[in-house]
């Protein structure tokens, strides 16, 4: 739980130092991307800090290339 609070604190400080200035200067696109990345960072870091199970993003790479890799490995007789 301490890990989660530390992440929230860091994210809070980051947002406090950067986001208001962006909004004041009307850099809305920058502010939107900043918020999105920070939000993603908070979510994924929380999973990592609390050791919560999360499916590996590499499974997407595996799913995308498995048919081709399997075909190539068997066609060429490569060790799997």
């Amino acid at each position: 739980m301490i890990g989660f609070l530390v992440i929230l604190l860091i994210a809070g400080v980051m947002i406090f130092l950067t986001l208001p200035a962006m909004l004041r200067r009307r850099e809305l696109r920058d502010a939107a991307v900043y918020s999105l990345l920070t939000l993603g960072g908070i979510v994924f870091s929380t999973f990592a800090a609390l050791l919560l199970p999360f499916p590996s993003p590499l499974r997407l790479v595996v799913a995308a290339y498995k048919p081709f890799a399997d075909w190539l490995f068997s066609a060429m007789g490569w060790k799997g």
Partner: protein
Amino acid sequence: MKNALEKGRIGSRQLAILIIFMTVGDSILILPSLTARAASQDAWISAIAGCLLALPMLWLWMALAGRYPQSNLAEYARGLLGKRAGGFVSLYYSIYFFFVSTGLIRELGDFFTIQIMPETPLRAVHLLILLVIAWGLAGGLEAIVRTSELFFPWFILLLLALLICLTPLLTPDNLKPMLSEGVSPILHGSLYVLVYPFAELVSLLMVFPYVARSRSTKRDILLAASIGGLIMFTVILFSLMVLGSYLTSNQVYPTYALAKKINIGSFLQRVEAVVAFVWVLSTFFKTSIHSYAFLLGIAETFKLRSYRRFIGPFVLLQFGLTYLITPNFAFYTDVLFKYWPFWDLTNAVLLPLVLLLAHSASRKRTALKA
């Protein structure tokens, strides 16, 4: 189209040093194992084949970068494929650069917690690496490249010392029998030599417009890649000749195991920290450039004012995903062996080829209109 997001400029020599660092990158530790697993004692032939196969790929990138010397990959993707498709390709590349750097940090973390500091939590190692990378990114491209210049003599010196110390242990018989299983395993092994040291250099397409070009730039790039290839070939050859193909393929970090074997007069021994130092250095620069390419790609895709202000969220995101990218080391090694090479090839060969074809098509269209 002059890029406004990066004000720094680097020289050809600095780019060459960066290429050598990035070619050696993480490959110095993981490549011997992957190639030996595929090609057994013929892995050294795979290394030569892989280096030769990398040449057309480098030519492809230089052809693409040469047509748009003032623009980075994200800019000319948008220019060639249009706002939507180009924007999507640029975002896709940014995500790819992000995951390459995630993988590299995870490799470093796993290496430290498996081999050097088993009691230290993996996330603590990740955090320390990320803080140093963030520091480099805040300094910008020039700062990263100048640091690489500073460390380069040490890198070469330690690598040479390591190889020289290993020469008494070389057993050429370990390379026999040659070509016992035909050409197919050699091709398989060459896939990894093509992909991990060379194909991942595609992130340099984000850096090329900031290189102060001279007549020798192309020659320097090819020379640097060749030196990197030669280092990889030597490391694979030494792994096979000292450890043999079975141990090389079954060790997680064969180069580290190699360094443990050094014992000169019972005086000079336990020098594996040298390998760790060399590996951390080369992987750090590779990771930094991929992280830089991600931030610059995101800034280009969304037309942001600066990439530096996104370093904080990047570190937070990277900290989470570096831990979550793989449930364990075995899964990651399996992905590296079977699937990741094709992802790398898609981004290093297929997409740049599409962009080059789009460039030719657009030139033809312009000529027809004229």
